[in-house]
């Protein structure tokens, strides 16, 4: 019951965050010069149609853009919570349909990268924090810094070009040509997996570098604590000492930061997507955000990305409350 109340409170706070986010995103999209009506008609005029101010005004009324700012925001957020973002400014199709699978594929690729990053970072970070050899320590440090200094778009590019030259396959896209528009099937899944590893690897590249730094710093802190010495004094040793004591106790802050790690990956997704021409995933983002000036679509995408971060934060809060007795007791009393 207590726990239920805690979960409800957290969910409520997550909602508030999301509403605040939506206000920020919506306002920024409003600040951008020109609105949806102008943009569409400008687009139309470039197709050859003549337009007048009256046309634009009529379009505004049709789109409801003449209503007050807060009312528009209210209706936008109300619809957004139901997964309905209206029509794209330019493409004139329903955004929810337009995004469809694409958003989920992108999200899963990012989550997979996050998973891979920590899969590598946790053991490496622990080794680098506890290893006694300065050589191993320094080289791990250097490698993890290289992960920062060699940006992943560059890495993506190099891998792609390398494979073009030596394998004749660009490795771009998430599906081979024959599966691009096919319905989901076993073969399509396999094809997807055979190609998805590259974006996952590339997105995980600098995420891993960051994660190693986090794990290393946390572990170095924990290893020096008295309770680890005390456990060693009781005869706990080796891997058991490492995993059950410092590693377990540095898990909390790691879980806590997962949401922000995901955020960082989202930050890199569009660029990587552009290079790997992941039309199914992030490059729609780029198209919407950067190329077509479609504020309705851009707002929807950013809102959904943020919503997934808020969701992750909510889940990690709950996990933390379940796994850390200190947090658990402070909730349950």
């Amino acid at each position, binding site marked *: 019951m207590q726990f239920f109340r805690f979960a409800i409170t957290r969910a409520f706070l997550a909602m508030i*965050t999301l509403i*605040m*986010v939506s206000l*920020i*995103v919506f306002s*920024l*999209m409003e600040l*951008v*010069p*020109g609105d949806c009506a102008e943009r569409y008609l400008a687009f139309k005029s470039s197709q050859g149609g003549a337009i007048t101010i009256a046309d634009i005004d009529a379009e505004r009324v049709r789109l409801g853009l003449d209503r007050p700012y807060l009312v528009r925001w209210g209706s936008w957020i109300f619809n957004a919570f139901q997964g309905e973002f209206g029509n794209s400014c330019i493409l004139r199709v329903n955004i929810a349909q337009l995004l469809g699978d694409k958003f989920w594929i992108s999200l899963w690729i990012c989550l997979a990268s996050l998973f891979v990053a920590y899969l590598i970072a946790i053991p490496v970070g622990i080794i680098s924090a506890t290893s006694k050899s300065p050589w191993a320590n*320094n080289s791990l440090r250097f490698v993890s*810094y*290289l992960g*920062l*200094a*060699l*940006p992943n*778009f*560059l890495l993506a*590019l190099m891998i792609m*070009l390398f494979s*073009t*030259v030596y394998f004749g396959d660009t490795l771009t896209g998430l599906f081979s040509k024959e599966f691009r528009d096919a319905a989901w099937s076993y073969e399509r899944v396999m094809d997807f997996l055979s190609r998805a590893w590259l974006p996952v690897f590339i997105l995980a590249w600098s995420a891993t570098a960051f994660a190693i730094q986090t794990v290393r710093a946390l572990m170095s802190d924990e290893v020096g604590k008295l309770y680890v010495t005390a456990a060693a004094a009781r005869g706990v040793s080796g891997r058991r000492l490492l995993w059950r004591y410092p590693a377990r106790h540095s898990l909390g802050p790691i879980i806590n930061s997962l*949401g*922000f790690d995901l*955020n960082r990956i*989202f*930050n*890199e*997704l*569009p*660029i990587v997507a*552009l*290079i790997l021409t992941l039309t199914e995933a992030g490059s729609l*983002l*780029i198209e*919407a*955000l*950067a*190329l077509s*000036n479609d*504020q309705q679509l*851009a*707002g929807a*995408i*950013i809102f959904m*990305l*943020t919503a997934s*971060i*808020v969701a992750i*934060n909510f889940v990690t809060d709950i996990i933390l409350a379940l796994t850390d007795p200190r947090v658990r007791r402070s909730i349950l009393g």
Partner: protein
Amino acid sequence: MTNTTTNGDVNVDQKRKEAYFTAGQGQLIWARFKKQTAAMVGAGILIVLILAGIFAPFLTPYDPTIDGRNKDYVYGAPNVPKFCDDNGCSFRPFVYTFNRTRSIATNFRWVTEVDKDARRYLTFLPEGDKYKFLGMNFTTHLFGVDTGKIHLFGTDSTGKDIFSRTFHAINTSLAVGTIGVFIAFVLALIIGGISGYYGGWIDSALQMMTDTVRTIPAIPLFMALAAFMPDTWSSETRFLFISMILGFVGWPTLARRVRTHLLTERNQEYVLAAQLCGASAGHVIRRHLLPSFTSYIIVDLIISFPYMVLSETALSFIGLGLKDPVNSLGVMLQNVTDPDVLLNYQWHFIPVLFFITLVLAFVFVGDGLRDAADPYADTKK
């Protein structure tokens, strides 16, 4: 005799100790920083790169924009200065003259013929392209060649000198980073400072706000904003706009750090001691809070710097950031996306090396400073 030497040793020892005892924060940090080889190497490289960036117009022979291009040497390979060849040696380093042709026979690729007999000798402090430095016009460059042009790193698709472009790009990237860091820092100082100094509900509200901003994926959001940058904007406006965007991306993390420093520092006993003397908020901030966290703030700034450079690069890379004639490392990296470049004109990767070195140098210096920034950590029991 032996006695005097030992006495001398004792005196030296005493002096060394007294120097340590009277060393202020800066000196202690420097002493600790000096011990870290990696950070010192990084600092050396960083200083060289920063100077190279600042004095790029003088150090490089040509204008980095289209104005300084060498029409006759498009996609030209780097010229490596030599002292000796089959025709004998020379005290002055020289490069060869190139003749380039392309025709249907060569598949319309440029074919370069080296004319080993026509040496171009390096000259120092020649007059060349006009540039502005500190508001004044100059035409003197560090080096050039007596006839024709020299391209140490080769040229790009339009014949622009990659050497000149790289150095200018370092300058631009550093400038964007500096402005970005500055904006982030001012915002962080105001918001984190208010939050940390006043605490209570103001702190809670500002924390909620900071966390909200932190959940928004900044780059996609600003990509969206950057997309609405009118094409009519001048390159300077774009430059400022990008810097501002980077500043707005960076502030929440910095603000959190400022706040944490302030909160811990505010509760120190020596701050209470000052307050019990009736010290005003201004005195406490000036004498205690600022000196205590400037070192941390500098560390944070240096650590966040490479991310600014990286973000700028990323934005410019997808064509949303800076554009010619302003060129940054991101613009330079964009050039290597062409498969043709990878296969045939690999010298375009030289700026990539500079970029990696720059970021690595920053990271190592930041790391070393972080370890050195709290010289009092181990004196507290």
